[in-house]
């Protein structure tokens, strides 16, 4: 009974579980989706999964360190999106495909 | 300061050449000749200002650079590198003089050549192992570019890459060994003098020596062309333009030999003997095997390259028998061979310009066509087979006497055989094929050098003759430095003899 109650009380484990699920979704999306934009979104999903974990740790450990890191991640993510989306847009403008499979110029 | 001046002049010259616009071709050449000539003349002041009979380094110039790791700019000469520095300066001058054969991109060429000249002088003047190493690289990299851009023949790019890869690997191995030394001494110093003092006070740990000696030997061996790591040399020298071939074969190649003398012998005497015994065998293999290969060569440049490898074997022998006489001879031969190799490749350049190739079978009777060059070539080739009154003879017999004195009887005997017979066979064959006999009709356009172009040959042969007729000029100054270098090993040997009961 007690275990069930503690299961119902939302604790660190719940947050982490959600975070892991989100992260796995992100990874799967990254590996399987073909559209660059969706790949990008999956990437963001992974970052945010990490953010969620960081915030949860921060809350349960009574320390602000985690939140500081989250701020950093958000900033980097924003910068990254700015560059990445710009690349995608310029690809689209040149009427080049935005499908991952077709971007294989780095092959031997 | 004098040494610093000598080695900075060419480097500054290189910068100056870069600032001169590309169409002032005479100026590029002028700056190169002036800079190398000036440092060559200044180098004579080293010779005459050197105090004989004084231990330690002279003309020292030391500036702290990165004190936290013990890195200094530190140059100086003692008996061992005095001759090498002077030889380097004069060979550089001669190399600048023979560079009239270059017809394109003079600006780049002369700046690279001057870098190379500064580098080789710096290599032998440095007393700090990082500078020693870096100066060698500074001279090496221009060689790569020069062979690739101004080289001869179809295979020049391949040759340039082969050389660069071989020598970079050799240099990397040397660097690893040098780091071993630095770490092993544990005194945060890159200074050769201080390292020697530390190792004399407290020997380096034996396991470290066991690893550092073969590492350094391997690295230096690759750089010098010890069999079987020698195949880069013939191809490189036959593809390179005259000047880099002269500087590389004459001067830069001595880096490895000099490194063994400076860094292995005095610093790690305890584990030296087994490796030196191996080196004696390797040296003889070099001398005899490469000598026999030289006999078969059809191309003059290839023959010169293999003969140079054979002579290097002699120098190795002189180092490996660990004897004062032989080491004196080895250092002497390094200087003499510097002049000799430079002459050979300068002559090769002349032949190549005049006949359009270096295959000896296509030549003949050139003594009639070009008496001066023919005379110099005969003298050089005869000097190469150990004719008295040329420097090589003195170096070789000192090495042989030293080898015998150290009870290396059979190497001495084989050395006599190599020095007197094998070298004579290929050198005389070259004279016979190139200079004697009838000249074929295709070579009717061959001409002798004019007054200005005679100068480099005359200078180099004068150098060979000067040290050959008056060897005390160098040997007299070497005594202290040589005995200091071998002192650690010799004192050990004496102890061994005390410890082991005599028969």
């Amino acid at each position, binding site marked *: 009974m007690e275990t069930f109650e503690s299961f119902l009380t939302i604790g660190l484990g719940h947050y982490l579980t959600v975070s892991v699920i989100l992260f796995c979704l992100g*990874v799967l999306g*990254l*590996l*399987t989706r073909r559209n660059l934009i969706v*790949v990008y979104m999956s990437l963001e999903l992974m970052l945010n999964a990490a953010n969620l974990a960081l915030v949860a740790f921060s809350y349960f450990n009574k320390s602000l360190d985690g939140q500081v890191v989250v701020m950093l991640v958000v900033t980097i993510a924003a910068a990254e999106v700015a560059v990445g989306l710009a690349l995608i847009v310029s690809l689209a403008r040149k009427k080049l495909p935005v499908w*991952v499979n077709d*971007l*294989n*110029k*780095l*092959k*031997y | 300061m004098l040494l610093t001046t000598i080695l900075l002049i060419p480097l500054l010259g290189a910068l100056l050449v870069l600032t001169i616009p590309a169409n002032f071709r005479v100026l590029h050449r002028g700056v190169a000749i002036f800079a190398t000539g000036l440092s060559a003349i200044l180098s004579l002041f080293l010779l005459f200002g050197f105090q004989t009979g004084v231990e330690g380094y002279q003309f020292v110039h030391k500036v702290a650079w990165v004190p936290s790791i013990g890195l200094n700019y530190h140059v100086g000469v003692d008996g061992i590198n005095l001759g090498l520095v002077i030889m380097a300066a004069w060979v550089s001058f001669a190399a600048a003089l023979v560079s009239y054969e270059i017809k394109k991109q003079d600006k780049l060429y002369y700046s690279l050549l001057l870098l190379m000249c500064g580098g080789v002088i710096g290599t032998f003047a440095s007393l700090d192992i990082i500078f020693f190493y870096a100066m060698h690289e500074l001279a090496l990299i221009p060689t790569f570019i020069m062979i690739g851009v101004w080289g001869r023949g179809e295979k020049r790019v391949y040759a340039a890459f082969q050389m660069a890869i071989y020598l970079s690997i050799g240099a990397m191995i040397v660097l690893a060994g040098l780091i071993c030394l630095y770490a092993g001494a544990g005194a945060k110093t890159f200074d050769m003098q201080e390292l020697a003092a530390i190792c004399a006070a407290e020997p380096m740990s034996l396991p470290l020596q066991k690893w550092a000696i073969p590492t350094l030997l391997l690295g230096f061996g690759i750089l010098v062309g010890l*069999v*079987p790591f*020698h*195949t880069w040399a013939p191809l490189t020298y036959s593809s390179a333009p005259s000047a880099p071939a002269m500087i590389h074969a004459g001067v830069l190649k001595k880096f490895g030999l000099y490194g063994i003398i400076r860094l292995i012998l005095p610093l790690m005497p305890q584990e030296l003997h087994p490796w030196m015994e191996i080196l004696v065998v390797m040296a003889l293999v070099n001398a005899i*095997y490469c000598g*026999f*290969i030289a*006999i*078969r*060569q059809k191309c003059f440049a290839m023959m010169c390259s293999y003969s140079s490898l054979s002579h290097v074997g002699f120098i190795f022998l002189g180092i490996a028998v660990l004897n*004062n*006489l032989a080491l*004196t001879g080895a250092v002497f031969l390094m200087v003499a061979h510097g002049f000799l190799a430079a002459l050979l490749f300068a002559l090769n350049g002349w032949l190549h310009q005049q006949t359009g190739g270096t295959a000896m079978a296509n030549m003949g*009777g050139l*003594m*009639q066509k070009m008496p001066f060059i023919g*005379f110099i070539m005969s003298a050089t080739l*005869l000097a190469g*087979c*150990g*004719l*008295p*009154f040329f420097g090589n003879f*003195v170096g070789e*017999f*000192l090495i*042989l*006497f030293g080898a*015998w*004195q150290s009870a290396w009887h059979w190497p*001495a005997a084989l050395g*006599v055989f190599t020095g*007197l*017979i094998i070298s*004579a*066979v290929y050198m*005389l*064959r070259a004279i*016979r094929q190139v*200079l*004697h*006999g*009838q000249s074929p009709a295709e070579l009717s356009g061959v001409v002798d050098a004019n007054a200005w172009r005679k100068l480099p040959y005359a200078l180099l042969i004068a150098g060979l003759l000067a040290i050959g007729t008056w*060897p*005390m000029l160098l*040997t*007299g100054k070497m*005594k202290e430095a040589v005995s200091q270098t071998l002192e650690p090993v010799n004192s050990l040997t004496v102890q061994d003899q005390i410890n082991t009961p005599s028969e």
Partner: protein
Amino acid sequence: MTNILLAILFLPILSAAAITLFTLRRPTVSAGISIGSCCLTFILSVLLYRGAVSQGLPLEISFTWLSVGALSVELGFLVDRLSLLMLLVVTGIGSLIHIYSRGYMQGDPSNSRYFAGLSIFMFSMTGIILANNLLMIFVFWEMVGLSSYLLIGFWMTKPSAADAGKKAFLCNRIGDTGFLLGIIILWGTLGTLGFSQINSLLAANPAALGSWTTLVGLLLFCGVVGKSAQFPLHVWLPDAMEGPTPVSALIHAATMVAAGVYLLARAFAIFSLPAAWPESLAWFNFSALEAVAFTGALTALLAALIAVQQNDIKRILAYSTLSQLGYMVMAVGIAYPVAGMYHLTTHAFFKALLFLGAGSVIVALHHEQNIWKMGGLLKRMPITFFTFLVGTLALCGVPPLSGFFSKDAIIAQAFSKSTCLGTISVGVAFLTTFYMGRLFFVAFMGKARSQSAEKSQETPPVMTYPLILLAIAAVFAGFWNVDTWMMRHYGLEPESAGWFAKLLYPFEHAPMAALLSLAAVACGAVLAYKLYYNAKQDVLPSQLGSVARWLKDKFYLDELYENTLIWCQDKFALVCDKFDRWIIGGALVGTVYHGVELIGRLWRLSQTGSVQTYAAIFVFGFVVLAYWVVNW
């Protein structure tokens, strides 16, 4: 004294330098410089002789040339009876030949080079003579090799001349290998190379060289074998006749080839030590001197036999030189260097005379050297004829000419040591007379056998005066007390005698040897007269068959060396070359090179270009890593 010595040594090299640097285009001036310097050294040598005799012998002066640790090489002069004799012979004959060269080389475009070469030779030769230590001898030994090389190959556009020079140099180098090794061992055991020190050390302790004794002797003898062209390294000397004739006279007859005998006499203390071999070679058990004696005898016999069937006038003389050198070497080998040096001196005179005479004939006949195209020279070239006759008689050993005395000294000593050697030496005397008679009857007597012989004229005085002077020397040298001079050098007390007693001395002292050698001469002369006087062609080949062919083809020794030593060397070089090219350069370097390339080729297959594949690999790697970290 020191100044005179330095001048004698350095004048020739200075003149060579002057010619090379300044007067290459002025042959007359070059000839003047060279002849002047040589005559001046002769005059200085005479002054030295007078000064040294009055000051007392021996005289030693030395400067340090190179001193490193225990090794000290000196530029040292040792003036004693031996070196004075040799110096006078060399500079005297050298001067005459220099003067003669002026006529012989008239009009050759490379005159200056020729005289520069001669001057280098004079420098090197005086160096050998005056040296007071072995290493200095070795240095100049190499230098005479060089000058010989330069002068044999003087007409370098001629392939045979260029090859001959090369062959001479290499044969000498083979000998010098032993020589240098001997010097090194000697220094390693005795610690000194000076002759005076060696002599006193060995006198104090004959076993000072220990087990090296005989080996050192034999190794030093190798140098002699090379330089003095003894069997088996004699093959270079006949080929050396490709050089100009005065060169053959000076270098390859009178002086340089005799340097080996000089070395034997000089270092006699080392050679004369009793046999002592290292343990492992003990079964050899012969002494160095025995080897020397038998090498000399064998060379004398072999060369005399070959000379019988040669047709080139210079080659006959060359083999004759070989044979006489064999005598000299044998003389030292039978422990009587006095006779060796005596024969060296007289031989220098009459052999130089013969070569110069031959040169005179060659010039008169426009470079014809085949004796079967000469003949009838008595009327046309009387001076050459008579001087050559004198030389021939002296060489054959007809009393009272000089050759008789020196040769008899050797033969007498040979009989007293071993009958075998004595017989050989008498046999060689017979052969000598026979081939010289053949040469003389065919080339000088009878009728002219070719057009050029018919039109020949006597050569100019610059060539005939040296002939006359040398002929005088060849006649009277037997009375110049060379033998007593040399005996005093070796500490023997000669019997003083007037010239008539001198003439009779051989018959009183060892009558059998003297009579035997006279009989041999007579037989040889008669046989040669019978076979060759007025002969149209050589009758020996038809009578002797294959023997004559073997003699004519020099016992096929050149071919033997060609097919053994040179073949081996060439094949070994070939193997090395191929090994280097295909095994080291091809297989080893190729394996590394292609191996690296292959790995690269394989590895780049993983570069698919698909970002998601990379990401998948990355994720996979991360999972593995994470699993490993967590479970560790």
